């Protein structure tokens, strides 16, 4: 019965046609290359660090648990944020979920496309649907975050 009730919330990736095989391969190569600098939080944000610039977004797991995103509240540009500060929100199914800064620093860029296309978060959560970029004030903070393996494990624990 419960399956019946919730079936209207099929995850977005199931509704889209599968990409050709070549693209899957390309993606997995890119993913492997950035693997070493990608970290996660227990609030389901991902952080990709290149030098001291951290790109932030919400994970694929998060977007599928939220459902269709209809509005994104981005942080102010140049805002100074402390790790774990609330910096915005994503709204889906009448629920606004807060997003937290995984690292401290200055917000130097926000993804303007999300204003008109909040669904980018569902379609491409860990790439085109990125949320903002933070110039880190303390690069070592990245060490406190989860790596891909630890994040996977965290999700598995949560769901079983």
């Amino acid at each position, binding site marked *: 019965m419960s399956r019946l*009730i*919730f079936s209207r919330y099929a995850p977005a990736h199931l509704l889209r046609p599968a990409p050709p095989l070549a693209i899957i391969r390309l993606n997995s190569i890119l993913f492997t290359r950035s693997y070493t600098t990608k970290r996660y939080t227990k609030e389901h944000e991902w952080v990709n660090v290149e030098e001291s610039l951290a790109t932030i977004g919400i994970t694929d797991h998060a977007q599928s648990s939220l459902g269709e995103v209809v509005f994104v509240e981005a942080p102010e540009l140049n805002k100074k944020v402390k790790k774990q500060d609330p910096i915005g929100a994503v709204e889906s199914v009448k629920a*606004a979920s807060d997003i937290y800064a995984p690292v401290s620093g200055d917000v130097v860029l926000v993804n303007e496309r999300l204003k008109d296309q909040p669904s980018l978060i569902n379609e491409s959560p860990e790439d085109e649907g990125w949320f903002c970029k933070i110039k880190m004030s303390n690069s070592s903070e990245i060490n406190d975050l989860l790596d891909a393996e630890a994040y996977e494990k965290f999700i598995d624990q949560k769901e079983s």
Partner: protein
Amino acid sequence: MSILSRRASSLAVNSSLPYIYLSQIPYAKALSLQSHLVTRRLKARKQLQSPSSLTTEENARLQHIANTDILLLLQHPPTYTTGRRDRKRAEGDVNNVGSEEKRLREFGAEYFETLRGGQTTFHGPGQLIGYPILNLQNYKLSVKCYVAAIERVIIETCDAFGIKAQTSEHTGVWTDGEKICAIGIQVQRYITSHGFALNCNTDLSWFDHIIPCGLVDKKVTSMTKQIAKQQQIEFADKETNQLQRKKREMSVEIVLPVLTEKFGNMFERSMHPLGCFDDSEIGLRRVISESISK
């Protein structure tokens, strides 16, 4: 019917869920109460992250604060609220700050910009408000399943009074194409706040001044109105005296116990009034009464 798998329920932290009916309280007080309850839990959770500095009693106390869910039930005096995406102040939309607020206040209602999801709505007497402060992790629920669960609770509550209600693509609960219950939630680190507003015998004319939830062609209804509609059909062919036709008022107090029961069934918790279950809840009860008496 329950949303939780057997496995999840066997892992449940607490199988009983306290609720409290606060009668009518101003929106500002309910807002600060919710914020207080959420912050208190998040703070306790944070303190528990460094358990070595805590005594056994402190640890137990903080565990209790961090884990205790509660369902707040209440009514508001006439109040219009907007959701997160319509916050003019936050947007720095200087020209528009206050114009909508001023317009709506002129009808004698209060006005608040909030951090919940959803758009403009009205709260007022005769509307049963539920603000569940839950940790979604305790129920192994995703945000979208939580919202769907709330919708089910409302549908089953309506059903208990013979009103057929359903969901639509617009979230919330609908009957005959009209909205009977609005939903707007905020989630902070798995802790929910805000919630649902079920029109029992709300004065629906308040909704004429807004576009509820941003849906231009949709109307709002109440349980009283739906039941009156059904009676009209029922008595259409019969000679009935005025007494039999007497309008059945679905007051908040009539709906409250049914809703509480349906909520417990859905979330697999036995519901009990706050403070009546064990002494440890007296603290929480005190926090609530202090918050709303300020």
